[in-house]
C-alpha cells in the first residue's frame, strides 16, 4: 500500500479528515506545520507528524515509505515545494475557495501560486468554478482534476420534508462576509410581515458576530431570530434535521474571498431539507434553479426575499426538490464515491503496478446507471458507494507482488547493494527496468483496447474529449513511470555513495 503524506492546516475535526484518513487503498501520514496545530486529542495517533520537526526529508520519506505528497491548501502546497525538491516526490494540492482569491493574501502569493502550478503535479479544486480560476491564473489544465468534497450519506440520512406548518429557516456557516448572513437577515426581515410565524436561525462563529447581532436589533427581528455558536457537530445536524428550509446566501466578499461549494448545503440536501442558495462560485454545480432547490443572484436582498416567500408559499413543491437534491448528492457528492475518486486520481501519479486497475474496476457509467435506477431516496440512504469501493484486491495484490519483487531485486538486498558496481548487475538491473517498462506499455495497450471496445457504442462528444484527456494522462503516466525508474536508479547510486543527508 502506498503512503500519502498529507499536510493540512490543523489536526481538527473540521479539517476534511476523511480526505486524509479514509482514502481507500492509501495509507496516510497526517502532517501539520507545527505541534501547535495539533488541537484535538481524539485525532492524535502515531500517524500525526509535524513538518517543522522533520530532521532530514530524505530519511523521513524513506523511513515512512511515502510515495506522494498532498497539500490541502494552495499555501500549504508552496510550503511543501522545498520538501518536494529534496525528495523528488509528486505533489498534489487541493484548492479551496480561500486559495482562489488574491485579496488578503501574503506577499508574493500569485507568483508563488504560479510557481506551484509549474512544479506541482496535480491540483484538486473542489469545484469546476475554482478549476476555471486556476486555468485563468495559468495552471495547465491537464494538471487539474475537479474533486468535489463528499457528504457521508450514512451520517446524513434522508427524511421527507416536514409536513406541518412550522416555517423555520436555517443557515450554517462561519460568521464572515462571504457567507452572506447579513443579506439573509435583511431578506428575512422583508418577508416577516407575510409570515409572522417564520423564524431564522444562524449557526456559526466568527468575526462578524457583533455586527450581525446589532443588525438583528436594527432590523427588529426580535425572538424570531437566533444566532447560535459553539454547537457540537451532532447538535448542528439535529438543527438541520429539524429545519424546514435551509439557506446559504453565499456571495463574493468585498476583498474577493469566495466559496467553493458550501458543505452545509450538500448536507442539507442529503437530509432532505429544501434549499435556497445563490449563483455563487461552485454552487450552480450543485443546484440547478428550480430543480434541486432555488437559486437567486448573490448579494441581492429582494431576490432572496422572493425566493423565501416562494418556498414558504409552495410547500407542495418541496418534496420534488428534496428528492432531486438527494439524488444529486448521491451521484456527485457522495463521500465514499469521492474518496474512491481521490484514490483513482492518486493512482495516476504513483504505483505502476496499479496502472492496469482502470479496466479492472467497474466503469463509472454503470454505477451511475445503478444509481439512477434506485427509486426512492429513502432506500438510497443504504447506498453508500460500497459497490464501487471494494477494488479487485487480489488482482492488485498480484501486480503489487511482482512489482515489490522487482523492487527488492533492485534495491532491497544489502548484498546486492554492495554488488551493484559490477557491470553484470547493472545490466541485470537495466533488464528488470526494461521489463517494468514493457509491462507498463502492455498494460496501457490493454487498457486502451478495453476502452476502445467499451467506448464503441458511445458516440458522445464528451467521451471523445475525455478519452483525449485520458490519453494525455497516460502519456504522463508513462513519463512518470520512466522518471520513477530513473529516480530509483539515482537512489541506488546515492546509497552507494553513502547517501546525501542534506547538511544544513
Amino acid at each position, binding site marked *: 500500500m502506498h503512503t500519502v503524506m498529507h499536510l493540512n492546516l490543523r489536526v481538527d475535526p473540521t479539517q476534511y479528515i476523511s480526505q486524509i484518513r479514509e482514502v481507500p487503498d492509501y495509507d496516510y501520514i497526517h502532517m501539520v506545520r507545527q505541534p*501547535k496545530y495539533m488541537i484535538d486529542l481524539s485525532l492524535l495517533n502515531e500517524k500525526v507528524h509535524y513538518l517543522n520537526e522533520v530532521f532530514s526529508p530524505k530519511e523521513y520519506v524513506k523511513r515512512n515509505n511515502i510515495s506522494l505528497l498532498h497539500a490541502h491548501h494552495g499555501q500549504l502546497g*508552496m*510550503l511543501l515545494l522545498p520538501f518536494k525538491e529534496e525528495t523528488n516526490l509528486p505533489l498534489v494540492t487541493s484548492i479551496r475557495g480561500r486559495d482562489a482569491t488574491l485579496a488578503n*493574501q*501574503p506577499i508574493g502569493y500569485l507568483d*508563488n501560486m504560479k510557481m506551484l502550478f509549474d512544479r506541482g503535479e496535480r491540483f484538486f479544486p473542489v469545484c469546476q468554478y475554482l478549476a476555471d480560476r486556476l486555468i485563468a491564473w495559468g495552471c495547465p489544465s491537464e494538471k487539474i482534476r475537479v474533486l468535489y468534497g463528499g457528504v457521508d450519506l450514512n451520517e446524513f440520512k434522508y427524511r421527507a420534508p416536514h409536513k406541518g406548518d412550522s416555517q423555520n429557516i436555517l443557515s450554517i456557516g462561519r460568521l464572515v462576509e462571504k457567507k452572506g448572513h447579513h443579506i439573509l437577515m435583511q431578506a428575512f426581515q422583508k418577508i416577516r410581515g407575510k409570515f409572522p410565524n417564520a423564524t431564522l436561525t444562524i449557526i456559526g462563529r466568527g468575526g462578524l458576530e457583533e455586527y450581525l447581532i446589532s443588525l438583528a436589533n436594527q432590523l427588529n427581528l426580535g425572538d424570531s431570530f437566533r444566532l447560535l455558536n459553539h454547537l457540537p457537530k451532532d447538535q448542528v445536524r439535529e438543527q438541520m434535521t429539524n429545519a424546514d428550509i435551509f439557506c446559504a446566501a453565499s456571495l463574493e466578499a468585498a476583498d474577493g474571498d469566495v466559496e467553493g461549494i458550501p458543505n452545509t448545503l450538500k448536507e442539507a440536501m442529503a437530509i432532505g431539507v429544501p434549499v435556497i442558495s445563490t449563483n455563487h462560485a461552485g454552487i450552480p454545480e450543485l443546484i440547478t434553479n428550480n430543480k434541486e432547490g432555488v437559486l437567486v443572484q448573490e448579494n441581492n436582498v429582494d431576490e432572496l426575499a422572493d425566493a423565501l416567500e416562494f418556498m414558504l408559499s409552495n410547500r407542495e413543491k418541496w418534496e420534488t426538490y428534496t428528492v432531486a437534491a438527494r439524488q444529486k448528492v448521491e451521484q456527485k457528492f457522495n463521500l465514499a464515491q469521492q474518496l474512491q475518486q481521490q484514490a483513482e486520481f492518486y493512482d495516476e501519479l504513483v504505483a505502476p503496478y496499479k496502472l492496469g486497475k482502470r479496466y479492472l474496476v467497474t466503469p463509472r457509467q454503470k454505477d451511475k446507471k445503478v444509481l439512477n435506477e434506485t427509486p426512492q431516496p429513502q432506500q438510497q440512504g443504504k447506498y453508500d458507494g460500497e459497490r464501487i469501493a471494494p477494488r479487485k484486491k487480489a488482482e492488485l495484490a498480484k501486480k503489487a507482488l511482482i512489482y515489490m519483487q522487482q523492487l527488492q531485486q533492485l534495491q532491497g538486498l544489502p548484498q546486492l547493494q554492495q554488488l551493484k558496481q559490477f557491470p553484470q548487475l547493472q545490466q541485470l538491473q537495466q533488464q528488470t527496468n526494461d521489463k517494468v517498462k514493457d509491462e507498463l506499455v502492455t498494460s496501457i495497450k490493454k487498457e486502451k483496447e478495453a476502452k476502445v471496445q467499451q467506448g464503441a457504442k458511445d458516440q458522445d462528444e464528451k467521451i471523445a474529449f475525455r478519452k483525449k484527456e485520458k490519453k494525455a494522462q497516460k502519456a504522463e503516466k508513462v513519463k512518470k513511470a520512466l522518471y520513477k525508474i530513473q529516480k530509483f536508479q539515482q537512489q541506488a547510486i546515492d546509497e552507494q555513495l553513502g547517501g546525501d543527508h542534506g547538511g544544513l
Partner: protein
Amino acid sequence: MEDFKTITVTKGEKSLEIHNPTSYPLIGMGAQGAVFQLSEDKCVKIYSDPVQAKMEEEALAAGKHLPFMPLVYDTGPNYIVMEYFNAPTLKEYLRNCTYIPDSIVEKLLYILKELKQAKFTMIDAPLRHIFVVGNEELKVIDHVNSFKRIHPVPLKLLRDLKIILLKDSFLDQVKKLEPDTFNEWEGYFNQNSLDFRNIPVHSGGSGNGVKVDSAITQTLIGKGHQGAVYRVSEETCVKLYGKTEHANQEKMVLLSSQDLPFIPKVFETGPNYILMEYLLGPDLNTFLKKQSVLSEDITKRLLYILKTMEKSGFKQIDAPLRHIIITKNGFKLVDHVYSFSREQKRPLELFKDLRERNFLDAFLEQVKAIDPDTYAEWTKTPIPLDENENTLV
C-alpha cells in the same frame, strides 16, 4: 524643542531603567539601549554604556556607503540620532507567507555580500532588525556588534526563518542563485556540528544559564537555567548541563524511573549530558490555549502522572504545563533535576499554569469527582494565589 539629552538610560536589575522627561515616545528597547522617536523620519538611540554607542557609531560610519544602512544625523557620547523607518519589519512583511519571495532572497543575499565586503564580522541580522520600506527596499538596524561578534554565516537570520517555516525555501533559492554561498554555509554547519560528547562544561555561575556556542544554534531546542537541549537526530536530543551536579541529579531520576510511561527514554549519559528521546508534539500549555473546555481526559492523565510520581517516591510533585509534551505515546513530563531533592507535596506550578489558562476551577472540580481524597489533600490549605507563595510550601 525638547532636549532628548535629558533622557537617561541605565542598566537596572533585570532590564534597562529609563527616565524620560520629554514627550518623545519610546519605540524600542533592547539590551544595550532604548530608541525614541524624534520626528517622522528621525529617532535617537540612547545607550546605557558609552562604549556601545561608540561601537555602533563606528559600524554605521564603516557602512555609510551602503544603501541599507540608516542615515546618521548626529552622535554624542551615549546617543546616535539616526533615520527612523516607519515600516514593517521583514518578519511582519513575510507574515503568513509560506514560500519566501525571490525578490527578498536576492535582496538579503545582496546585504550579506555587502556586509562581508565592508569587512563586518557579523554577516547576519535577525528578521526584526530588517525593515521593508517603499519599493520593497530593505534597511538594517542595530550594528552594535558588527565588528565584535563573528557570524560568517547568517545564523540569526536562518534561525528566524526556520521559526516562520521559510528557511527551506530560502536555502533552496540560495542554492540556485549563489551555489558558492550555499556550499560555504553548508561547510560551516558541517564543521560546527554538535559534538556533545566532547563539549566543555561552561558553568555560567549562579543564576546564569549555560553558555551556548552560537555556531550550533540551528539545532537548539531550548535552554534554561540548568541546561540547553539540542536535537541530535530524528528521534534523539541531548541535554547539556552547566553543572555536573545538575546532570547527576537528573540522571538519577530519569534512569531510576525508566519504567514510568511519562518519563522520557534515556539512551546514553555522560558527565555533563544526557542523550534522550526527542519528544514530538505540542506542550500542554500550547495545546490548552486552543481549547475552550478542559476535557476530563486531560485531568485524568495529569492526575495519573502526579499520583504515580508520589507513589514512586518523587519528592517534588508538580507538572508545569510547559513541561508536559503531548506525544503519540501519551503525556511525557520533562525537566526532573529537582524531582528527588525538592520537597513539594502539591502541584503548585500546575495550579498556577491552569489558572492562567482559566482552567483551574474546572480542573479542581473534576479532581473532586474523580479522586475526592486528593482533592481534599490539595485544598486543605488554600491554594496560594501569587507566585512568591508558590515557591515555599
